[in-house]
Each structure stands twice: as C-alpha cells, then as structure tokens.
C-alpha cells in the first residue's frame, strides 16, 4: 500500500465539493500546476466533514486553488501528520501557510 496521497487531481469548485460525502478524511489542495497549497484534514468539528473543510480551503486560497484530492479515513489525525511528514520530506518545507507546523511534525525517510 502506498503511503502518498497520489490519486488523480479533481477540479476544486463549489459544485465538486458539494457532491462529496460528509465524511472525515484528509486532502490536498493544489494550484493548476499541481503544486500543493494545503495539506489538511476534516475532523469531527467540521459540520459536514471533508465538504466543510474544502469549502474553507476555497475561501482561504481563492482562485489560486484549482485542484484537490482526498481520502476518507477515521484516522484523519495520524494520516494528516503522515502527509505533512511526506510533504516535508519531498519538498524540504511545508506549504507556506502551514510553515508553523514544521516544529511539530516529525521526520520520515520513506523508501
């Protein structure tokens, strides 16, 4: 089982987000070139799960965010940390608005 979230990107807009199930999970949001802008999770505090979390991302990034991919999981906290660690390993730093997480996130050296 691969540990990266490498599903195909989907177009990020209100219509695509509203069609998602209101589940817990993790996601990545990216610009049109596939550069990741956010690695996030939808937890139990999000009223409609991943749908609510992605609506917030649309507001946060505006038109810059055009793509997303997601994964439903009840282990959203540990999976989120894993995705942050993988991003840190692959890119040397976290997305700009998540840089303050770098002190908290661990180190991973995947095969």
């Amino acid at each position, binding site marked *: 089982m691969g*540990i990266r979230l490498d599903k195909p990107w989907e177009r990020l807009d209100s219509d695509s987000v509203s069609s998602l199930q209101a589940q817990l999970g993790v996601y990545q949001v990216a610009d049109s070139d596939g550069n990741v802008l956010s690695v996030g999770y939808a*937890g*139990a*505090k999000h009223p409609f799960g991943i749908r609510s979390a992605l609506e917030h991302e649309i507001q946060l990034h505006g038109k810059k965010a055009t793509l997303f991919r997601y994964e439903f999981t*009840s*282990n*959203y*906290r*540990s*999976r989120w*940390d*894993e995705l942050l*660690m993988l991003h840190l390993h692959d890119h040397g730093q976290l997305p700009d608005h998540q840089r303050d997480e770098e002190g*908290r996130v*661990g*180190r*991973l*050296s*995947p*095969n």
Partner: protein
Amino acid sequence: MDFSLNEEQQMIVDTTRRFVQTEIVPLEDELDPDAGSLAPDDQDRLITMTRSMGFYGLDIPEEYGGPGLDTTTRALMAIEMSQHRAGLYNPCYGVFGGAGLAQLYEATDSQKERWLYPTLRGEKKGCFALTEPSGGSDPARAIQTRGIQDGDEWVLNGSKLYISGADKADYALVFARTSDDPGRNGVTAFIIDTDTPGFHVRRVVHTLRATHYATELQFEELRVPQENILGEVNGGFAIANDRLSRQRIPYAAGCIGPAIRAQEMAIDWAKNRTAFGSVLAEKQAIQWMIVDNEIDIRHARYCVLAAAQKADSGDRFRTEAAMAKLIASEASSRVVDRCIQIHGGVGVTKDLPLERWYRELRIRRIGEGPSEVQRLIMARDILGGSFK
C-alpha cells in the same frame, strides 16, 4: 490491606482532580475529539502551573529533581489524571512532564550528560525501540536486529515496529542481538542519535489510536560507537525487562480513570434519559450494568493499589503488577463498553469521549504486555520458574 488515603495523598488527589476538571476538560471542549495536544500557549501556561504546584516531572527520581512520589501516590494521581477525553494515552496532555527513558538513570556519567540531563531539561526527546516485526511479547527471542562489532564501533542492521515518537526523537534506545545466544543473554542496548546515517523512520503505522501513530524503523549499516552501549554488552534484556515491570502499575492505574468518568456519565444519563415511560435508571437491565461497572472499577482499583503498596514496601511485586495490569485494562474496557450501551446511539458518536476510550482501551489489553503474557508471568511466579 488498608486503602485509605493519608492526608497528603488526599490533598494531592483533590488537587489533581480539580486541575483536570478546571484546566483540562474546558480546553478539550474546543479541541478536535481526536486531538493529542494542546495549543502551545495553553501547554506553556499549564506547565507553569504544575511547576508551581511542585508536580512537574512526576516520574523523575527525587535525586534528579523530581517530587519523589511513592508508587501508591503516583498510581492515585494516574487515576485522576486520566479522567478526560485524551487522558488514557495522554494524561493532562503531558503538562505534568515526563521522566525520559527510565533506563538512562543507569547510564554512565558521560551518557547522562549527553542524553539524560538534556531530556530532563526538555531539550531532547528519546524513544524506546524494542519490538520488531518478528514479535513483541517475547522480545528476548524475537529480536533479529543484529549488532556486529567492528573495532570501536558496532554495525547495526535490522528493523523495529510500533515504535512511538521515533520521528520526533533526538535519540533512540535500540536493542539488538550481539551474540549467537538466541535468548535473553544475547541482547545489547544502544543509545543512538536519530540523525546517525543509517537510522531511518520508514513509515507511520496507523492504529485504533487515531490521534497518534507508531512508526517502523530500519537500520542500514548503522555505525554506533562502543561508548553508546547502555550497560553491559549482552546485558540489554535486563534493562528492557526492568522497564516493562515498573511501567505496569501506573499503566494499569491510567486505565481506571476513563472507566470512572464513563461510569459517572452513564449514571447521569440513566437518571435523566426517559424510555418507555420511566428513566433508564429504573430499569433492571441498566441497574445491573451500572452495578457491574462499579464492581469492575473497584476491583481494578484495589488490585492497582495493592500492587503499588507491595512495590512501596520493597517486596517483589511482579505478580501483583501483572495482575493489576491485566485486571485494570480488561475491567475498564468492559465498563466503557457497558457505558456506550447505556448511552445508546450518542455513545458511539464523537460528541462524547466514550468512543475514543473504547478504541484506545482495546490497545491497553495488548500494550506493555498483552493479557496472556501477564497470565504467563503470574503462572511462572505461582508455579515456580523451573517449568517450561
């Protein structure tokens, strides 16, 4: 056996209970139900409080600046500290401080300077790497990580599984086989800086404990200086085993807190929830579950305190500690299961902490030695150690 609390213990229990209810529980109302940490500002503020209370670093020996609590008082505190949503695995979110790896108190002076004291000052973190893919319940035989001496260094190759905190640790206590002895006399403990070439945290291992993860480690031609050996060459298993025995009493005590809190919630619910014309508390099915909960909680508490008192007396307490761990983890699991049943649908939602305790208590029946190993330990003591 007298389980009444002396004046100091009662004061400590009351203070801890008040701290949990007034400082921790209100913060949890704002956190994600699976959160494993507080906001940094809250963490710092509460650590300042526990320091001023004289309770910071609960498990640090007195000669190293700890409060010098006996095992009984420490167990009583563990019962109180775990009475909140994250309390089972993260009592009070760590604001009472940690002790570091207990094995380092047996280290040489230079090892203490390099790893122990920075850990006690909060400057370094360590992790404990014993279990391997080949097994965890019988580590002496299961360890396949191999250490081969090469001059003044040892070269390690192998892997470890279910290791907590390795991805954030500055150093790891790693156990490796260093002789042809297939059992406990062939294992050595190494203290290894995690930035050493060849030390890899390969992957996250997700578990029922969704807020936290374990890791899998791999060692590839990992070169470790001779001076990093903790204790004697081939004497590492005793170091590992000592930790496993000592941990069992506070580990068992921590299981009881969520059960107590779940029982309080169930009683409150049963007295107020109406079905078929009367409150649940008037129905015999519910009454019996509440009573069975109380029996389980008291049984577990008595066993934990009995083990703690034996430990404080200086007598051998291995059987009592194993019994406490087995009973507390299993009894608390039953209690939380019944409390979910009493609550019905809302009991399995993330609106309440019951579902998190239910998941995490399942792990407690395996962690720090599964129930079957606790029975094996007791059987050895009861029947004598000579049987195979």
